[in-house]
């Protein structure tokens, strides 16, 4: 193994408890779309990862889950290989987890694994760095949401929600999203319907 030029950042302080805690936050996020989950006390992760996207990978990725980084850096690759043992892939379609650090340049959702009709679970989970969360702009409905949920997700390309809606035409196939920003985590499973407010269609 090649020694990295800069010292490797550490992973979880307590791999068992930290992984469990982060997983429960991700589980809550995908179970209750639109409800922000706080994840604190995260170790720093090398760019382009942020502490939150790094923590999700530390908790869930391993040698069985190819990871795709939108803008890979040697530090992030070395860190993921060391702490997760995860293979890094060049093609989005091969990834189980993908980290989108520049959401304005997000590849089409269809570029990622969508699952198969008989195995829709064989699809990618995208961890998207959002520029922040607001409380308006989007109306979410679907499983995990009692009536409806209104919120905003900043920093996405203007046509993003159109591609989300077109993915729903292929349900139950599709990708699942985890938005991260600072210490916050927000889940958007493929089952969530998103209407953009003020834009009658």
């Amino acid at each position, binding site marked *: 193994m090649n020694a990295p030029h800069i010292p490797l950042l550490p992973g979880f302080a307590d791999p068992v*408890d930290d992984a469990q805690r982060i997983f429960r936050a991700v589980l809550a996020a*995908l179970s*209750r779309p639109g409800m922000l989950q706080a994840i604190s006390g995260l170790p720093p992760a090398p760019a382009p990862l942020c502490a939150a996207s790094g923590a999700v990978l530390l908790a*869930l990725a391993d040698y069985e889950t190819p990871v795709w980084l939108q803008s890979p850096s040697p530090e992030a690759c070395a860190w993921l290989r060391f702490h997760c043992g995860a293979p890094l892939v060049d093609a989005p379609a091969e990834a189980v987890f993908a980290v989108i650090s520049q959401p304005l340049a997000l590849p089409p959702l269809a570029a990622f694994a969508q699952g198969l009709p008989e195995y829709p679970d064989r699809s990618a989970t995208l961890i998207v760095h959002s520029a922040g969360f607001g409380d308006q702009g989007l109306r979410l409905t679907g499983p995990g*949401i*009692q009536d409806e949920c209104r919120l905003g997700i900043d920093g996405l390309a203007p046509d993003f929600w159109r591609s989300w809606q077109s993915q729903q035409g292929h349900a*139950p196939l599709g990708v*699942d999203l985890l938005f991260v920003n600072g210490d916050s985590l927000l889940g958007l*499973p493929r089952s969530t319907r998103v209407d953009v407010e003020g834009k009658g269609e």
Partner: protein
Amino acid sequence: MNTVAGYNFAYLDEQTKRMIRRALLKAVAIPGYQVPFGSREMPLPYGWGTGGIQVTASILGRSDVLKVIDQGSDDTTNAVNIRRFFAQTAGVATTDSTGEASIIQTRHRIPEKPLGEHQIMVYQVPLPEPLGRLEPREAVTRKLHALADYGLMHVKLYEDIARYGHIASTYDYPVLVNGRYLMAPSPIPKFDNPKLHMNPALQLFGAGREKRVYAIPPYTRVESLDFEDHPFSVQRWDEPCALCGTADSFLDEVVLDDAGGRMFVCSDSDYCKTRQGAGHTGSQSPIPAEAT
């Protein structure tokens, strides 16, 4: 600190937990769909809750409070045994109280006390495939789920009506989750089916021997299959619980002697105990044989 030397927190190794956790996340994202997972051999036999145990072990944290019930009761030997397993391997707090639990592992019942958003139900599932009794080949049932082709089940239910005048499933009564996937609710009595619908708690299902997990997220539509002229219905008892007097819980029939004497008592032991503690009381006496 772990209470059993040589084993990881909650018995499973971290790689196995990650694999199950990933499967659970996909299960939540695709409500009612059965996600295959690399089920491990557990130190308890297949068919005795290995799926539920693996799910619980994968989600459990040190601050969780665990309740385990079998047939609604905390005191049945299998519930005692599984609770003991987690107390030993994870050192977590356990409780009999439905309200105090953050995770409730169950076999065959949903507690009578409504669940809250902070709770997770974990169901032990023996046979996860709702179409399995009609079509045993998984290669075929996977295709039927992919096509949402549930004609087989509708025909079966219709034949029941033609033959018996009503649908003859009393437990493991099939449900449609989020309008898409047909799901086996594990063999809970159909009495409990309405509790699956729009439940504030997250509901996770684990089938160890059949190597699948599935989920119903909170606030998800869950419909019990029926026909317009034969709407879904649940059983009710004429007798209230002989111990706590409730008329709205699932009752166990307890045979008291060999002359037909018996009693109907709550299957949910915590519910019954709590009511009795609050001063509610039932007839306390058996139904004489001739009375029925």
